[in-house]
């Protein structure tokens, strides 16, 4: 059951039954949701820097572009059709086409904010979810097919899953708790990441050669801005400037703090050194894990969630590196494991005293854990299969993978005809012709 629905229903007696509320627009809620939408939008380029710093310089732009372009292609797909499939009146499985081309999406109230704003806010989620997947196939996937993939994926995979949980679909009706997208966004993206990493295959240098981050400060910068944006992601999911938003906000602040501390201590224990890349990863994992729980658990529980998720993720990451699965930037270990821990612990630590909606197992509602598990399994299964089919379809038209030569030269030059950092020596002006100057 989604945070939004609580608001729309002001905590309905029958969680899951979707009743569009007919409230008036609140200026204060609108102010906060305007800001939240901007914050979530900012997360996607920030992700580009988080990812871009971790790859080699010759692939920096390509990696960043994988995030930036999601803003264009997924964003448009959302306005044209995906929003409708996710949030328009429809079946338990998928929304209708009532809102396609934004028809019927106007300034009227949706909850306590204008409907267009709600649509835009949700759109920012679709964009970043698609961008998250890119971490699994950096440094080797051709750019054209990538664009086709994220566009189709956001329509065929993201929209339905969002509908299930938030759009009045079956998982919402079952009362699955996902405050801001632990399942819909992170587990969903991670499942897709695993599949695409396997289908595209490992980088030629993977496990043969050291592949070292080219700009760790960019990764730290991305982390900082992602965290900043995440306040809109989680606290904005309360859809208003209310107590639920305040709780979600505070948890979004303290869970990553807990994760950061734990991650550093694990680093110190294992290698004697607290790494910066580790700190960045720990923060993100804490943010991921608290996402489904943000508005449902106490701040202390949030710290616990961050700490547990960090531990799990830390070891998942070490294990993954020993496998042949080149999930290059560890989308599965960070967002998959983090999302999983978060979704399950939400089922355990949810506290009606704080959220006024539902209790978790720890507070006597054991069944919640079952629902959470069901939501996780269903999402993973659907996302994995959907991703696989989309990729198989694209392969019919074009290869997914850059040639070994292109991979060697780097995708910036070969896919984008640019270098991230250039001194310009030996670059000969071809066009406009030099003549133009003598003219």
């Amino acid at each position, binding site marked *: 059951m989604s945070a939004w629905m609580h608001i729309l229903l002001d905590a309905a007696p029958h969680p899951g039954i979707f009743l569009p509320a007919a409230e008036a627009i609140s200026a204060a809620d609108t102010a906060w949701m305007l800001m939240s939408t901007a914050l979530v939008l900012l997360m996607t380029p920030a992700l580009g820097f988080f990812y871009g710093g971790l790859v080699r310089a010759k692939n920096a732009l390509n990696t960043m572009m994988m995030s930036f372009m999601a803003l264009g292609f997924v964003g448009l797909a959302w306005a044209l059709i995906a929003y409708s499939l996710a949030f328009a009146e429809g079946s338990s499985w998928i929304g209708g086409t009532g809102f396609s081309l934004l028809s019927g999406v106007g300034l009227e109230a949706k909850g306590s904010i204008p409907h267009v704003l709600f649509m835009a806010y949700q759109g920012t989620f679709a964009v970043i979810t698609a961008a998250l997947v890119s971490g699994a196939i950096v440094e080797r996937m051709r750019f054209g097919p990538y664009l086709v993939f994220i566009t189709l994926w956001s329509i065929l995979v993201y929209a339905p899953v969002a509908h299930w949980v938030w759009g009045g679909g079956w998982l919402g009706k079952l009362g699955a708790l996902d405050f801001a997208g632990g399942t819909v966004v992170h587990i969903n993206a991670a499942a897709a990441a695993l599949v695409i990493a396997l289908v595209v295959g490992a980088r030629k*240098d993977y496990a043969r*050669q*050291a592949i070292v981050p080219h700009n760790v400060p960019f990764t730290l910068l991305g982390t900082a801005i992602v965290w900043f944006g995440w306040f809109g992601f989680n606290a904005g999911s309360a859809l208003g400037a209310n107590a639920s938003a305040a709780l979600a906000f505070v948890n979004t602040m303290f869970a990553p703090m807990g994760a950061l501390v734990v991650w550093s201590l694990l680093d110190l224990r294992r290698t004697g050194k607290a790494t910066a890349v580790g700190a960045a990863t720990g923060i993100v994992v804490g943010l991921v894990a608290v996402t489904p729980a943000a508005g449902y658990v106490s701040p202390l529980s949030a710290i616990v969630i961050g700490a547990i998720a960090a531990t799990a993720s830390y070891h998942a990451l070490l294990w993954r590196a020993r496998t042949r699965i080149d999930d290059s930037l560890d989308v599965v270990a960070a967002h998959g494991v983090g999302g999983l821990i978060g979704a399950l612990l939400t089922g355990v630590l949810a506290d009606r005293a704080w959220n006024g909606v539902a209790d978790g197992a720890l507070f006597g509602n054991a069944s919640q854990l079952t629902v959470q598990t069901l939501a996780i399994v269903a999402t993973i299964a659907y996302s994995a299969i959907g991703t696989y089919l989309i990729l198989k379809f694209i392969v019919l038209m074009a290869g997914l993978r850059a040639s070994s030569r292109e991979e*060697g*030269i780097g995708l910036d*030059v070969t896919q984008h*005809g*640019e*270098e991230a950092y250039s001194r310009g*020596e*030996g*670059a*000969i*002006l*071809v*066009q*406009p012709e030099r003549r133009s100057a003598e003219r």
Partner: protein
Amino acid sequence: MKLVVAIVRPEKVNDVLEALYRADVRGLTMSRVQGHGGELEEVETYRGMTVKVELHDKVRLEIAVSDHFVGPTVRAILTAGTTGEVGDGKIFVLPVEKVYRIRTGEEDQSAVTPVETDDAASS
């Protein structure tokens, strides 16, 4: 003494270093360079401007060796550095009149035999 200067592909550096290690070459100096030769140029576009990049990233190795070591060194690079595609690089062998080890002032032969630390040994 000779100075072996080799221009190799960045993606081949690790293989070359390993080959040199096996050939008992311990000391060397490396720098990033850009080379022009027979390789295809890359075309880049920045807004209204199209440029042709005639230079490709290469790595330059500088290895001072005593004469009887020149052969093995060159062979190691030739075998480990080649891909068969245009752009594999060159090796230049230059005469050297004198070599000093700054730390000790030792000269020539003895100047280029690194002290063996466990780490170096295990590398």
